[in-house]
C-alpha cells in the first residue's frame, strides 16, 4: 500500500513506463518503416533512372528499356479520369449540399458514396472490363481505364467538395441571395470559388490514387507502352491523341507490376523511384495548399 500521509513521495509506475515506451516505440516504428522502405527503393532504383529511361519506350529492336510510354500513359489516364470525374463529383456534392433537402435521397447518395469508396479496386477492374471493355466495346484502352478509375475516385472528389462547401459560411450564401442573385449564379460566383481549395485537394488526392493504381487498370487499360508519334499539324495531333486514347496503355504502376512479375527487379525499382517521387510531389503540393489555407483563415 502506498504511503498516503505525505505528498512528498513520488510513486513508481513501472507499467506506465512500459506503456509510454510502447507509444514511443510504435511511433518510431512507423517512421523507420517508411524511411527504410523509401530509402531501399531509392537505393535499389536510383541507378536505373536516367534521362533515356524516362524518355524512351521499351523496345527490343532499339535495345531500350525506358518507361517513356508508361509515363505518357499515366498522364493520359490521370487527365482523362479527372476530366470525367471532377465535374460529376463536384456536381453531386453541390446538389447534396445546396439543393437536396435532408431525406431518403441524400441518405441513399451518402450511403452509396460510402460503399463506392470501400469497394476494392480489383472489383472496379472487373466491372470496367465487362462494362467499358465489352458492353461499350472499348476493349483494352486508355479510355476504358480512365472511365473505370473515374468511378473509383468519384467518392473522393464528392467527399472533399462537400467538406469544402460546408466550410463556406452561410452568410456568403445569404448575402448573395439577398442581393437578388439566383441560386445558380450564387453557386457559380460565390460558392465554387470559395470552395476551390477543397476541390483542388480532392483533385490532387485523386491524382495520387490514379498514379498508384494498378489492379483496376490491368484488365481495362492493358499494358501497352508505345510512345505517341508527333502529328503533323494541329488537327492531325488531335486526331492522333484521340486515337491514342483508344489504344491499350499501361501506367507506371501497371508496368512496375509486370516487370516485377517477370523478375526484372532493376527496372521495377527504377519505376518505384519515379512513383515515389511523384507521390512525394503530391504530398508536398497538398502540404503547401494546406499551409496557404491555414494562413488565409
Amino acid at each position, binding site marked *: 500500500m502506498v504511503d498516503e500521509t505525505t505528498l512528498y513521495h513520488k510513486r513508481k509506475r513501472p507499467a506506465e513506463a512500459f506503456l509510454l515506451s510502447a507509444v514511443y516505440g510504435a511511433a518510431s516504428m*512507423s517512421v523507420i518503416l517508411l524511411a527504410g522502405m523509401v530509402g531501399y527503393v531509392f537505393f535499389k532504383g536510383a541507378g536505373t533512372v536516367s534521362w533515356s529511361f524516362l524518355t524512351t519506350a521499351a523496345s527490343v529492336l532499339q535495345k531500350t528499356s525506358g518507361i517513356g510510354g508508361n509515363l505518357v500513359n499515366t498522364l493520359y489516364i490521370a487527365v482523362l479520369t479527372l476530366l470525367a470525374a471532377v465535374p460529376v463529383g463536384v*456536381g453531386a456534392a453541390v446538389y447534396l449540399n445546396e439543393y437536396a433537402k435532408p431525406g431518403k435521397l441524400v441518405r441513399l447518395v451518402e450511403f452509396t458514396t460510402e460503399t463506392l469508396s470501400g469497394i476494392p479496386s480489383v472489383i472496379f477492374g*472487373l466491372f470496367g472490363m465487362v462494362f467499358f471493355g465489352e458492353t461499350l466495346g472499348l476493349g483494352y484502352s486508355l479510355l476504358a481505364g480512365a472511365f473505370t478509375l473515374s468511378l473509383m475516385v468519384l467518392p473522393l472528389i464528392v467527399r472533399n467538395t462537400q467538406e469544402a462547401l460546408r466550410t463556406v459560411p452561410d452568410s456568403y450564401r445569404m448575402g448573395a441571395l439577398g442581393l437578388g442573385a439566383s441560386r445558380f449564379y450564387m453557386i457559380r460566383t460565390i460558392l465554387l470559388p470559395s470552395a476551390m481549395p477543397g476541390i483542388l485537394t480532392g483533385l490532387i488526392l485523386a491524382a495520387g490514387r490514379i*498514379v*498508384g493504381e494498378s489492379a483496376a487498370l490491368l484488365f481495362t487499360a492493358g499494358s501497352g507502352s508505345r510512345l505517341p508519334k508527333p502529328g503533323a499539324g494541329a488537327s492531325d495531333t488531335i486526331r492522333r491523341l484521340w486515337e491514342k486514347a483508344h489504344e491499350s496503355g499501361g501506367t507506371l504502376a501497371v508496368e512496375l507490376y509486370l516487370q*516485377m512479375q517477370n523478375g526484372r527487379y532493376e527496372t521495377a525499382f527504377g519505376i*518505384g523511384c519515379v512513383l515515389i517521387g511523384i507521390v512525394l510531389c503530391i504530398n508536398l503540393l497538398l502540404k503547401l495548399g494546406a499551409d496557404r489555407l491555414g494562413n488565409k483563415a
Partner: protein
Amino acid sequence: MREGMKTKQNMLCPGSVMADRKKKAVVEGIAQAVFGVCASFVILVTASITVYMIGKGASAFWKVGVKEILFGTVWKPTAEKPSYGILYMILTSAVGTGLAVLLSVPIGVLTAVFLAEAADKRLAAVVKPAVELLAGIPSVIYGLLGISLLNPLMYRLELALFRDSPGHRFTGGANLLSAALVLAVMILPTVINISEAAIRGVQPGVRAASLALGGSRIQTIFCAVLPAAKSGIVTAVVLGVGRAVGEAMAITLVSGGCVNPPLPFYSVRFLATAIVSEMGYSSGLHRQMLFAIGLALLIFIMAVNTALTKIVKKGAENGG
C-alpha cells in the same frame, strides 16, 4: 458590367423583364436538374457495379453449386475435370487479414496516441508526414519490397525453422506470413489516421475529469480517452479489414500463389489475388468463377460497410 448591360436592355424594351425572369427560371431549373443527375449518378454507379457483379458472378454459383464452391477445397479450374472449391482462399483471406489486423492495430493505435497526445510537438511533426506518405505509397511498391526484401528474410527464417523437417515444402519465403506482414504495413496508415481523429475527437472534459481524479497522463489516455474513442477505433479496424481483404497487387507474388490451407509457412492464394493472377488466361466457367469470387468479395465489403454504419450510429448515441 454584365448586370449593367442587362438593365440597359431592360430599359430599351420594357417587355423583357418577364422574359428575363422566365429565362432565369429555366436556367435555374436546368442547373438543379444537372446537379441532381450528378448526385444520382453515384447511386447509378454503385447499383450497376452490384448488378453487373451479380449478373456475372451468380451464374457460376448456379452452375457449380454454392456448396461445392464455398466448401470445396480443390481449386483446379483448368483441369480436365475442373473443380472450383474456394474454401482455402476464403480461409486464407480471413486468416491473412486477421493476422494483419492483429499486427497493425496495436502499433497503429499506439502511434495515434503518440500523435494525438504526445507532449513532444517536434517529434509529432516528423511522424505525421511520415504516416501521410506511407498512405500514399502505391500498393505495387509494397509488393515489390515484399518480394525483394521480405521474402529472402522469410526464406532464411524458414530454412532455420524447417531444417529438420523433410516433409516441409519450401516456399522461398513467399508465404502467408509474408503476405500478412505486407498487409499489416499497408493498413497501418488507415488505422493510424482514423484512430488519431477519434482520439482527438474525445471531449476535453473526459481528460480533465480523469486527471482531476488523480489519474496520471498514461492512465488518462488508456483508461479514459481510449475507451471514449472506442467507436472511432473500431471504425479504424473495420476499414483496415476492408482494405486488407480487397488488396491484391501487393500480395499476389508475396504470398506464393498456391491454393493451400492458411498456415504461416505455406504458399497461399487470397481471394483478391486469385482474380488478378488468373483473369489474364481464364475463359468460360473459370472466368465466371473469378467473377463469383469478386461477387463474394463485394458482398463481404458491403456487409462490413453496413456494420460500420451501425457502429458509428451507436457510437454517436453513446457520445463516444
